[in-house]
């Protein structure tokens, strides 16, 4: 029964909502998809990995405390520092802020969940399983040992024959799935699932930071994933992408890695800066100054950060002019950083600052990060970089940036939002002591390392002799690190105490003005019993009783419609009400999908390729299962949403979140493809031993078949969503069949071309050509599946002239495949011609 009038009884409304939104207890928890639970899981798991990374750090410092220490030999030490860096960057920092974003964003934006709850859950399992592969490797003594940036040829099979490097490549790629999933989901959530009235310029700054971060992840991770796949292919099948003797180039790996690796640093910093911009105004007791300035500088930072990767490669013999350019671009990042820094200080200066515990950690940020930023400018100065590159000066700099720019804000965030997570306030706080131990310990450890580096101590050495003059510095550094470790232990104890024994917290204890504080504490699964409408950047000040009004069901959607989980979707810029988004309930399917994905990755890792293929096919099949029974079999048209307003369901509008998901996924996919094409051209221009001994002679028949197939598929897909065709089931299914056949023909063409490539192990040119063709072939094969699936959906009654979402998403795929296919054909026909002449 539908009750679309506002329920006046809050308890009854709560019970109704709770029944459909809740996650079942016991083993049923494995089926959780709710953002509050999944976000919490991300955060807790990330802290566990922080503990592991921290223990590894302590091992490093114990080993370096005294000269000629016999504690760890080089074999173990190399694994330890590699895993320390890898765990901290990939398994701690990124998942931690992903979890925080997942937990907070829907609440801050006035929504009931993320746009794709099952995707969050799937991402979480991928993260957990991928991370476990690395940790199991560590426990078995098989951990990667080539440094966290895994430079080739050291990480190639010749010089690292064991499984260690494969564990890194496979484990990290597995984890990156969760990063890409989070990126897509965060963007779609921020774009679409906001409270009506929250136009972009009324969004909380935290959402802006996360939006930009997510875009950076979307474009930053694909180059790393491509690099990892190429390296794994080289290691497993001997295709020589990085082997200079056969036309490959170790520098290609460095470019792909840092194309990811530099933005990565900002990807870690920006969410923490988002925390700064959220907490600081609360403790300054005024609105932040320069909202627009901050937004512009975040965007500027994102763009700049993609132009800076070469500053990690100043010692590889880069041409003059390029050095000057990248040096200048690197220093230019100081501008957007300074804008934010002074916006924060200005906010404090013009407000009435309060020195509460989270603020103390924010001050720690100012101190530590300012120093890291200043040494960063120094490192951007090329001649100086030549001296201190790869020394402990760089180790000091990177920890000042990462610990200052990430850990301190995150500790502040922990204390700030903990009452929200748990509903509890601390009885006694060890936080101040913990702060001082961490702060003093940190500076003791790392300030000194600047000097050790200048005195010539390189990074990644497992010991040193007493003639070097570094003994005292290293000893003090190690002592400092143990002080810091005690501080972190105390922090952990404090948090555990507050979670288990804290007293009942009052609502909105800090007097914040963002919407997440309008939920109950701890929040119910659905966040808000009814959704607010937003008229300013500080929704909590506008309507004093807003929390109570919402709980009474006096906002939007203050009712349950047919047992469906609903939240609202808005037009991106204006925040105008646009659609009712239906969300899925708890389900085990993300877990099962992640398990078969794990079968794929473990199959590749152990070189059971048949198992891997089965895992891959099963993953695709599982992903298609996500939509089974999901959708509407009849047109709904406008539905009441309360407050006298109406909106259509998301399946009947053009700007549905899943449309965006496909668009964004294709952006990421396109970036991966561009990285591959860039790699091919890079090798041609820069690598030794070119031109190749043989050139590909692409068959005309195969090429023609490929072109015809791609064109037919793209055209048919376009026709299938034309209004006149959509309306008639036989017609649209016919066009879908044409699209499937077109993709099938293209697949055949590309396979023929692949078979025409002479032995791809002979030269990087042949290897790159082969992989480029395989990339398109895979997309065409998936195109057959998707077109076929469109037919299945249509026959099952989920498609109509109004409900065309499934087909429109398919059409995006077919168009994209045609695009990359044509580019591949141009490249493989064009390149031999240019080289041959």
């Amino acid at each position, binding site marked *: 029964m539908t009750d679309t009038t506002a329920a006046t009884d809050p308890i009854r409304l709560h019970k109704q909502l709770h029944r459909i939104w809740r996650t079942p207890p016991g083993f049923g928890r494995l089926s959780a998809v709710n953002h509050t639970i999944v976000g919490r899981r991300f955060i807790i798991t990330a802290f566990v990995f922080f503990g592991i990374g921290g223990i590894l750090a302590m091992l490093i410092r114990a080993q370096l405390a005294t000269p000629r220490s016999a504690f760890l030999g080089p074999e173990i030490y190399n694994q330890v520092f590699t895993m320390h860096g890898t765990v901290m960057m990939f398994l701690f920092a990124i998942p931690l802020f992903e979890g925080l974003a997942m937990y907070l964003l829907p609440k801050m934006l006035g929504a009931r969940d993320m746009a794709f709850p099952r995707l969050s859950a799937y991402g979480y399992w991928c993260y957990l399983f991928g991370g476990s592969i690395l940790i199991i490797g560590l426990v078995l003594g098989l951990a990667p040992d080539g440094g966290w940036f895994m430079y080739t040829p050291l990480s190639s099979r010749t010089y690292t024959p064991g499984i260690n490097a494969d564990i890194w490549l496979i484990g990290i790629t597995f984890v990156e799935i969760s990063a890409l999933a989070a990126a897509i989901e965060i963007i779609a959530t921020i774009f679409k699932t906001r409270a009506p009235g929250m136009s972009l310029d009324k969004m909380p700054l935290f959402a802006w930071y996360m939006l930009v971060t997510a875009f950076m992840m979307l474009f930053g991770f694909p180059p790393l994933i491509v690099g990892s796949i190429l390296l794994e292919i080289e290691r497993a099948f001997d295709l020589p992408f990085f082997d200079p003797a056969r036309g490959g180039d170790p520098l290609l790996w460095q470019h792909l890695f840092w194309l990811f690796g530099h933005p990565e640093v900002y990807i870690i910093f920006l969410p923490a800066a988002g925390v700064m911009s959220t907490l600081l105004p609360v403790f300054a007791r005024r609105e932040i100054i320069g909202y627009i300035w901050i937004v512009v500088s975040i965007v500027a930072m994102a763009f700049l950060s993609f132009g800076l990767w070469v500053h990690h490669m100043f010692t590889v013999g880069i041409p003059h002019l390029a050095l000057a350019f990248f040096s200048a671009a690197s220093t230019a990042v*100081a501008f957007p950083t300074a804008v934010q820094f002074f916006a924060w200080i200005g906010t404090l200066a013009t407000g*009435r*600052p309060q020195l509460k515990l989270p603020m103390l950690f924010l001050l720690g940020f100012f101190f530590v990060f300012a120093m890291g930023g200043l040494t960063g400018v120094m490192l951007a100065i090329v001649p100086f970089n030549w001296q201190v590159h790869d020394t402990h000066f760089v180790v000091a700099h990177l920890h000042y940036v990462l610990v200052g720019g990430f850990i301190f804000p995150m500790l502040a965030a922990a204390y700030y939002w903990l009452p929200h997570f748990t509903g509890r306030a601390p009885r006694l706080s060890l936080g101040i002591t913990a702060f001082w131990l961490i702060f003093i310990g940190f500076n003791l450890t790392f300030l000194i390392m600047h000097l050790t580096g200048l005195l010539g101590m390189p990074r990644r050495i497992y010991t040193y002799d007493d003639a070097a003059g570094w003994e005292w510095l290293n000893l003090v550094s190690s002592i400092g690190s143990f002080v810091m470790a005690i501080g972190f232990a105390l922090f952990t104890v404090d948090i555990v105490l507050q979670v288990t024994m804290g007293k009942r917290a009052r609502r909105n204890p800090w007097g914040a003005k963002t919407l997440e504080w309008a939920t109950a504490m701890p929040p119910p699964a659905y966040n808000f019993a009814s959704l607010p409408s937003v008229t300013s950047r500080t929704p909590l000040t506008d309507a004093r009783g807003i929390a109570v009004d919402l709980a009474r069901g006096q906002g939007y959607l203050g009712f349950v419609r047919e047992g469906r989980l609903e939240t609202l979707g808005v037009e991106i810029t204006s925040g105008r009400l646009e659609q009712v988004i239906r969300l899925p309930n708890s389900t085990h399917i993300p877990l099962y999908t992640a398990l078969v994905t794990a079968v794929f990755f473990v199959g590749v890792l152990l070189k059971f390729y048949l198992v891997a293929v089965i895992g891959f096919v099963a993953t695709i099949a599982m992903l298609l299962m996500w939509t089974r029974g999901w959708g509407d079999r009849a047109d709904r048209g406008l539905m009441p949403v309360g407050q006298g307003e109406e909106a259509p369901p998301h399946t009947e509008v053009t700007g549905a979140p899943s449309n965006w998901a496909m668009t964004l996924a294709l952006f990421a996919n396109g970036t991966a493809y561009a990285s591959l094409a860039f790699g091919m051209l890079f090798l041609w221009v820069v690598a030794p031993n070119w031109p190749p001994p043989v050139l590909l002679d692409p068959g005309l028949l195969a090429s023609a078949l490929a072109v015809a197939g791609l064109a037919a598929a793209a055209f048919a897909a376009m026709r299938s969503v034309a209004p006149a065709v959509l309306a008639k089931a036989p017609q649209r299914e016919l066009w879908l069949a044409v699209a499937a056949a077109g993709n099938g023909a293209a697949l055949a063409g590309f396979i023929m071309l692949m078979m025409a490539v002479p032995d791809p192990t002979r030269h990087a040119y042949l290897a790159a050509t082969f992989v480029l063709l395989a990339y398109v072939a895979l997309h065409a094969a998936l195109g057959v599946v998707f077109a076929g699936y469109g037919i299945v959906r249509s026959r099952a009654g989920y498609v109509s002239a109004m409900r065309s979402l499934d087909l429109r998403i398919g059409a995006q795929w077919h168009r994209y495949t045609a695009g990359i296919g044509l580019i591949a054909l141009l490249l493989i026909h064009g390149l031999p011609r240019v080289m041959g002449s």
Partner: protein
Amino acid sequence: MSTLDTAGPAAASIATLWWVMLIGATLIFLFVMALLALVFIRPGIGRGTPASWWLVGGGLAFPAVVLTPLLIYALWAGERLFPTGDPAVAQVDVVARQWEWNFTYRNAAGAPVQSSNTLHIQAGQPVQLNITSADVIHSFWVPRLAGKIDAIPGHVTVLQLKADAPGLYRGICAEFCGTAHLEMQFALQAHAAEDFNAVLGGLPPAAAPDVNAPRGRP
């Protein structure tokens, strides 16, 4: 081993750069921290300053004033550190491999001679090193004389350095290159002009160039 205890012009100019930057950075750091302290000691002190003062002044003008001269100075200083390409400068071919350094020179008679793990140069004279690797990436670094440069298989990188006075200078491999990365050290021996030819004369002739070594592209 210290980069601040310099013995050659390249390292010396970088050390000067460091001291300049250190002083600048310290002043900036103290200024920002003082500002922050003031905000808490005297709350509301900035109440009168308009927001744009912070954003334009602190965010744009301040970094512009600091960075522009720094960049110009650094570019100018860096320009003088690049190899001159002067044919009169003595050349040494350096090949790094796990885990040793090989140096090939021409002696007074023009015949190729070589040494391992000890590089002989003439004090007071610049020398150009053409560096490559036979296996993984290494990095050539003599901290007291000059910055480092990577030895990359398939590429030749060039470093020019000069030792002001005769002496023994320690060199290391600065890029992580496997289990014996730490042991991959070498000595740079700078000889007085009158001894230098005799030293080169005493070196064994270089083996024929390694045919398996990848052809380099600069």
